[in-house]
């Protein structure tokens, strides 16, 4: 395939150029989307601690300040806040760990069930805020 004197290519060359652009664009988009997904994964806040929670003597146990500090070191957060509060009037308890910050944050909220020392299992709402 040769260009003529005016540097104009043939139909086949034009199609080939278009295909190269298309492939390059598709690869770029794929890599871009994949990298965004990876970032989302990294930002996910761990809630593994929920499984170890209990209500004992009117207090929520199974997690303490050391978890917050270790998680900050592990994930690179400047600070982190965990709030847990049982719902309903039976076995009422609440817990707040960590300190908030003025920096950007991500958070996760939800509900979990917590076993109690008197045999009940109650519902609790939780909120975990991680500051960048």
């Amino acid at each position, binding site marked *: 395939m040769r260009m003529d004197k005016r540097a*104009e290519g043939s*139909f086949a060359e*034009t*199609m080939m*150029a*278009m295909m190269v*652009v*298309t492939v390059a*664009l*598709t690869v770029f*988009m794929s890599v*871009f*989307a994949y990298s*965004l*997904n990876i970032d*989302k994964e990294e930002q996910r806040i761990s809630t593994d601690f929920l499984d170890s929670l209990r209500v004992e003597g009117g207090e929520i146990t199974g997690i303490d300040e050391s978890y917050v500090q270790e998680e900050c070191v592990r994930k690179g957060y400047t600070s982190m806040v965990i709030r847990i*509060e049982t*719902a*309903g*009037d*039976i076995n009422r308890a609440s817990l707040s760990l960590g300190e908030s910050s003025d920096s950007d944050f991500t958070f996760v909220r*939800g*509900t*979990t*069930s917590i076993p109690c020392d*008197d*045999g*009940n*299992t*109650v*519902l609790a*709402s939780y909120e975990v805020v991680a500051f960048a």
Partner: protein
Amino acid sequence: MNGKGMVATLDAVIFVTVLAVASMMLFTAVPHDGPEGPDASGICDSVSRITLSSELIAEGSGDRPMNVWDMCAVSIVSGDTGFVEDYLGGVIGDILTDRYGYVMKVEYRGTVLEFGEGRGNPVSECMRDIDTVGGIVSVSLTVYG
């Protein structure tokens, strides 16, 4: 338009098409955070995990752990639904906070227990048939916001 013009036009059209398709794929590939709001289905599932002492609805019953829907069934049969209404109302109210209203209906053997207050527009709804010791309890929860 001569042959070269046609080729250039075709080239541009295909390029734009590919760009649009790639953009759509990118948009769907990246997870987007939807509007935050309470999920009635999730709340029903969470409430199903509550287990309380049977003493709370029947004194002298031996302090056995009892699932909350079993408690509802027993309370409906006994006609004393005050505890389950107050307790479940408090639980759901605490989860939803003052920002949202709700109506919960619990039906067992033709008797319907209804509590909560709906205000605004329904934002989420769920219905469940839950297998209890005494039979099926039908639960519906509508969240308003």
